[in-house]
């Protein structure tokens, strides 16, 4: 197997999101908030969501960690705004496929800037960094689902 290349991992777009994260900050009127930590390395994010009429109306995050985890969350939030909640599951699946080296997923235009993360699949120990955001997102939607069925 060919050696993985550093420049395929550290794409300019990733570094750019790391330095200038999108949707970073807190919102006052979130409906759900999830704290997610990667216990083995200490990366963490807090993700807040507001859903209106079945669509993601707003999303914000705060956190700290490596360039991969923080850029991936930033890219994810960029894609989420206005998306139907029902589409999120397939987005998460698609991203997971990309992290497992699926080249079709890496070309899927619906994945937006997240496609720049395709190179992470060649660095298996870093895949969990990239997945932190989607893990938090899925937990948030599960919580949201629970609270809407309770009420």
């Amino acid at each position, binding site marked *: 197997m060919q*050696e*993985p290349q*550093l420049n395929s*991992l*550290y794409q300019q777009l990733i*570094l750019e999101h790391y330095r200038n994260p999108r949707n970073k900050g807190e919102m006052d009127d979130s409906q759900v908030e999830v704290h997610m930590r990667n216990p083995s*390395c*200490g990366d963490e994010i807090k993700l807040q969501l507001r859903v209106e009429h079945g669509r993601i109306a707003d999303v914000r995050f705060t956190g700290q960690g490596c*360039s*991969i985890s923080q850029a991936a969350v930033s890219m994810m939030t960029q894609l989420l705004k206005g998306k139907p909640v029902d589409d999120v599951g397939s987005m998460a699946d698609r991203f997971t496929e990309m992290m497992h080296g699926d080249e079709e997923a890496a070309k899927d235009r619906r994945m937006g800037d997240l496609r720049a993360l395709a190179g992470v699949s060649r660095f298996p120990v870093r895949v969990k960094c990239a997945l932190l955001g989607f893990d938090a997102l899925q937990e948030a939607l599960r919580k949201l689902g629970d609270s809407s069925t309770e009420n």
Partner: protein
Amino acid sequence: MATRADSGHPVQTPALDAHALRRDFPALQQEVHGHPLVYLDNAATTQKPVAVLDAVQRYYREDNANVHRGIHELSRRATEAYEGARAKVARWIGAADPSEVVWTRGTTDGINLLAAAWGLDHVKEGDEILLSVLEHHSNLVPWHLLARRTGARIRYIEIDDQGEWILDDLPELLNERTRIVSLSHVSNSLGSINPVEQVVPEIRARTDALIVLDGAQGAPLLPVDVHGLGVDFYAFSGHKMCGPTGIGALWGRRDRLEAMEPYQGGGEMISLVERDASTWAEVPHKFEAGTPNMAGAVGMGAAVDYLESVGRDAILAWEQALVRYALDRLSDLPGITIYGPRAVERRSGVVSFTLEAAHPHDISTIVDMHGVAIRAGHHCAQLVMQRYGTAATARASFYIYNTREDVDRLVSSLHEVLKIFG
């Protein structure tokens, strides 16, 4: 034949020859991502010399049998090798009597043994356990579990900005309720060599607490004299001192060991078993239930032989020489923060640092692609990370086979990090 200098001057300890030692370690003779490997993760685990690998193989090929159980020749030889290794490991930490050395799976296992076998019998609600903020999770969590079961309270020695214990508070932290004091000899996350020689007598003077040292990072490095230290227990791991994984030792003062109930029950640790009860074997076998890690013990004994041939005084001197050089070279990097004591004499071979430009994981990935293995993360010392308000650091840690060229390779690969993230 070795000749002593007869001029009346002290004999100079010959510095160890790291380039020569390096050839004893097969794992170091490889390329990683197209570069010769520079292994700087020794605080996590060290590589193994041929002498240790051979001893383990020879044990399995020639002597393998269950120890203390057979009359036959192989069992006799296995027992001899196993007990011979115990004597070597005892000698390494200055213990006069090998029967005060209990084989364990490692430091973690030794501390858990104490928390269960001593702690559950002697610690009550309202009692106190004194630890320090520097501790590795394996010298925190077993005591947290004990505290949860007994209602004891955990207290901490704090650390200053340089990772050294703040001892002004010690009199206040010790009182008649202090039942256990468990401290690290050397910190794995910052490399501080802790002033246990000063602290242990003070603890003794003020309490009759059980005094435990976590020697995971101390035993590989320092000339340890458990009797001189005046502690009750000293726990350490084989794999951090060129030995195999899955083996370690817990040294304990004989009266303490004898007064303690067993940890686990099973074969090997009994004297007589009847229908409702049994009586225990002598120390140390009382604490060694089941078929032990015989090959591991033999390997750890071989590791002691190897390190003795290197020269124990040379180890600390060499690591500190490398650290001095590394601190010097690293401090030129823009945006670097180096943690731990400023004085090299108070440091082990560990250098923990962060760069403003890049997160420790990114640093570790990039230097790895240049063949340099370092650790990034919290190093199982989250209390230390919290103290400095960071989630992670990058950590380079040296051992006997590292060289100045390894430090140079680390520095040049960090420049590659800065090129990407600068």
